[in-house]
């Protein structure tokens, strides 16, 4: 808490810089969305959504640090564990379109 509130440069605290970093990751998510939408094959989309999930975990962790709310890490953990389920579900579905489920 005190570390996040510490002033780094020009009156901006560490929390401000972390928020800017989280905003940067959110902008990157828009770039990853391009691959999820355009991706010529389903494998591209699976990978894109997997990277998006990891990106969301990072955003949530940075937000938890920047806003001084450690409970945000719980949500990040849920995503870290369940994003894997989404990836394997879609990737096994793409084999013969659900024929092997």
């Amino acid at each position: 808490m005190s570390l996040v509130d510490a002033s780094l440069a020009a009156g901006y605290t560490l929390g401000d810089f972390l928020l800017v970093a989280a905003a940067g990751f959110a902008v990157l998510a828009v770039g990853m969305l391009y691959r999820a939408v355009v991706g010529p094959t389903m494998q591209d989309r699976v990978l894109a959504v997997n990277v998006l999930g990891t990106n969301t975990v990072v955003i949530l962790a940075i937000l938890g640090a920047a806003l001084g709310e450690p409970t945000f890490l719980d949500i990040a953990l849920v995503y870290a564990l369940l994003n894997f389920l989404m990836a394997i579900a879609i990737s096994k579905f793409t084999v013969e379109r659900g024929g092997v489920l």
Partner: protein
Amino acid sequence: MSGSDSGVDTDAADTDAADTDAVSKPATDGGFGRDRPPRSDGRLDSERRQGTPYTESQVIMSTVKIVTPFAFTYGLFVTFHGGGSPGGGFQGGAIVAAVVFMIAFAFGIEATRQWLANTVVVALAVGGALVFAGIGLVPVALGGAFLQYELLPIPDPVKYGMEGVEILGIGTIVAGVLMGLFFVLAKGFSDAGGFADADAFDDEVGDGTDGDGEPTDAESLDGESNPGGPAAADGGEP
């Protein structure tokens, strides 16, 4: 990339054109094209599904073996620790059900269906609803209002009454119902009829709708699936 895509498209078109008479073509397609999803096959019928071997992925199975204990423990943590951190019965039950989905995707849905019996799923859902109603009704029996936790005969009744509702009520209902939805959706629509009377009921409806025409099977099916069409036409003409 686009070149290979167009090649696959023409391949798929060829399969479509020759689909009526050629039997060997889908077989070779299923043999060699497994790394790429079939483009235009449409629904895989049951014979085709029997013919394709279940592709067990070593990567997925090993990873699921490692991840599921942690995910299950975390689901229990979210359920049991809902009073002090974000979460609660609903979220924790969903995570626990997601662990079962994970196991089913890695080791096969049919195998998971045999491992997790229908009795367990139904007991979770029904037991949760009964426990929630029971915790609510105990204060009523003691002369209070529904869910009036202060009257529960336990220490720190409000806190542990709430925890009991969250853990044994909501969490088990959500986990059981989500697992059940998963299994029943994976099984699909039962056109053979899970209900004994379903066919008889359908026949009665079919006979009633087209009693004036020459009832063939196709016509009665049409009348069932779209009852508004013929009736509206009949009403509009005179």
